[in-house]
């Protein structure tokens, strides 16, 4: 779980060009980290690539925070 969190954080920092300490589990990609709709699509693609999973569009819509991403990925990897 903590390993997933760190990897998610790294991706978010790289893609959104934000300070690592802002990337908390509660942080919203859009409201707190400045992502727009295209950034969100790109983030989901980066998660898919990093964790070798598929995130369907309807699931992606609900991944709006760092914590939500970590939770989804953890469940997917089971």
């Amino acid at each position, binding site marked *: 779980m903590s390993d997933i969190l760190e990897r998610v954080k790294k991706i978010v920092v790289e893609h959104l*060009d934000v300070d690592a300490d802002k990337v908390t589990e509660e942080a919203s990609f859009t409201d707190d980290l400045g992502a727009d709709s295209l950034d969100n699509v790109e983030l989901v693609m980066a998660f898919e690539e990093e964790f070798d999973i598929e995130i369907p569009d309807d699931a992606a819509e609900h991944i709006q925070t760092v914590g939500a991403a970590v939770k989804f990925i953890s469940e997917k990897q089971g």
Partner: protein
Amino acid sequence: MTKRRVVVTGLGLVTPLGCGTDIVWSRLIAGQSGLSRIEHFEVEDISCQIAGIVPRVDGRNGGSPEIEGSFDPDAVLPAREQKRIDEFILYAIAAADEALAHSGWEAKTEEDKHRAGVLIGSGIGGLQTIYDASVLLNERGPRKLSPFVIPAMLINLASGQVSIRHGLKGPNHSVVTACSTGAHAIGDAARLIAYGDADMMVAGGAESAICRLGLAGFAAARALSTGFNDNPKAGSRPYDKDRDGFVMGEGAGVMILEEYESAKARGATIYAEVAGYGLSGDAFHITSPAEDGDGGFRSMSAALKSAGLSASDIDYVNAHGTSTPKGDEIELRAVERLFGECANDLVMSSTKSAVGHLLGAAGAIEGIFSVLAIKHGVCPPTLNLDNPSVETSINLAPHKAVTKPVKAALSNSFGFGGTNASVVFKAVD
């Protein structure tokens, strides 16, 4: 309706001779060439292996952080933003930044922003982006495509990005007319100001099609020089008997155009007036110019007419002159036909001999060179013109720049599809 006068108040250049207007101009009139062998992608299997590449701080085309005018992408945009745009947009942003800073123009009110627009075109747009996306789509499927593929390669996104960056909320437009793009962009933008749609326009062209697809595509059309792969700087040789095709170039040229009275009122430095603009079509062939040169003749005539000038008023012509076997002489004959006896006093040069053919940016950078010829009283040279293929009374400025007062200059651009544009610039007293 009375047309308003339009003047040039700022210039920005990214070219194979470097980036920054002053350094590019000094190298151009010194007779330097920006052409080199392509080293940054595989060219062994392509008949043309040379190009006019923008020198970069990473070493491309001889650039380095220590050499003035070397292009530094990181100085324009953060790396994250660079990945979301094609290079032609990066060049457009850099040239627009320089031109705006150069002009000193600033929006003081929201209304000022509404009256300021952007019209930057490109002949081809994000070719490398399209190529990369096509390969990715083929190899890994549609889910792997970046959401930025489309906005990265769309031609009008050069205008879009520049408007967003500088808060310019007036007309937001673009041009796609192959090698006439830059000239059409400047002419059309001037008309938007003349007819009252805007008071200021950021206008020009940008291109970055020097990639395997672009090079191989033009090579397939037998348009490129193939005989100078071992001597790149001699590859672009307009009017010379050994010319064998054009050499691709890349970069961007952007001008700040303003309504004359408002430019004067704010104390702007005025470089020249956009005095006339003419357009025509050949209706002849997709890639070859009509043999009689009538299309070019008519676009030049229309530009003179709209400027209220006659041929004898023109001191310098910046030719389209691409170094193709057919096109150069056809244009030369059309200019001779238009100028008649005044041809004896005319200087005409092709700056493509030094920077190559920047396609959709060509008309914009050549318009800027025409404006600088007026400002400095110097006509840039035609490099590599050792043995003219035909006789002419026009001074083609072989090898060396010609110093002479230039009160008015005409810049020609002719493109695939038979699209012709001519712009007349003149000094403002």
